[in-house]
């Protein structure tokens, strides 16, 4: 089965957010009143094959912990839903760490 997962990565409470602060002051400079705080996080969408929704969620959660979020700064949440149709193939990429090849 195909699933689409969404990982929302946000800064931990208490961690200063330079991007959010800049957006907030830019909003004020543009004359937008009433914005008290802005936090900028990441929204990572993943499409994957998995035997079940539970399995997909499990896998994405693991990936979130190992790679997608840095526990020193960030927390994350995972949402998974069945994905409708297959999307176009993905760009070929440089091999990640550990892939074949070497000098």
């Amino acid at each position, binding site marked *: 089965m195909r699933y689409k997962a969404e990982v929302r990565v946000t800064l931990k409470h*208490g*961690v*200063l957010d*330079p*991007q959010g602060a*800049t957006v907030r002051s830019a909003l004020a400079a543009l004359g937008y009143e009433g914005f008290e705080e802005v936090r900028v996080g990441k929204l990572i969408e993943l499409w994957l094959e998995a035997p079940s929704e539970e399995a997909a969620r499990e896998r994405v959660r693991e990936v979130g912990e190992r*790679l*997608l979020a*840095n526990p*020193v*700064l960030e927390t994350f949440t995972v949402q998974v839903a069945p994905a409708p149709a297959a999307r176009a193939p993905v760009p070929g990429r*440089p*091999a*990640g*760490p*550990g*892939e074949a*090849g*070497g*000098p």
Partner: protein
Amino acid sequence: MKARFGIVVFPGTNCEMDTYHVLTRVLGQDAAYVWHQDRAPDPYDCLILPGGFSYGDYLRTGAIARFAPVMERVAEHAARGGLVLGICNGFQILCEAGLLPGAFQRNRSLRFVCGWTHVRVERADTPFTAACAPGQVLRIPVSHGEGNYYVDPETLARLEARGQVLFRYATPDGEITPESNPNGSVANIAGITNEQGNVLGIMPHPERAAEAVLGSEDGRLVFLSVIRYLSEGRAVRV
């Protein structure tokens, strides 16, 4: 005797040739490149993770590189008490790998920053600073988009108590001021070691300040400290 340096190269590393040049041509040491997929046994006295943009800095700096096979070797080397030096992106990778505490955010300005900074040497009794005087101010350039070092307050207190902060951004006179901090790092931190004192992460580029014709020779002191420590049979332990 010459010290043997291994310079780790990830896809996207771009300061490896500079580091090699300084170690071999300027300082007359032995150096070799270590490919990111290389797990072979380790003949080096000191492993250096140089600057650059490993994996394009995508997702987070160092986040992907830390899974490279070579990182197991770096961890083993460190666990045996071997010296590991991470410069800029190398520092970021060591943090992601958990070999150093903390993490990096984008510079407070949100802009990349390249230019000269001054860093104050907080301790001169470590393998990485033995050639410096305590409190000495080094003129070394930075060049990074995400050099904004963060640790939570408790960890920071622990780092300070154990003397793990080796370099801090400062004025030319050695004063620690907000203006001398190029990126918003907590406590003006520019370089820290692990608890054992054998792994250093430093955000400025000492290799860029190793020849007078390029503007400063202060960065040599970091490498000379390592060389001295190694030649003295690792006598300068923390």
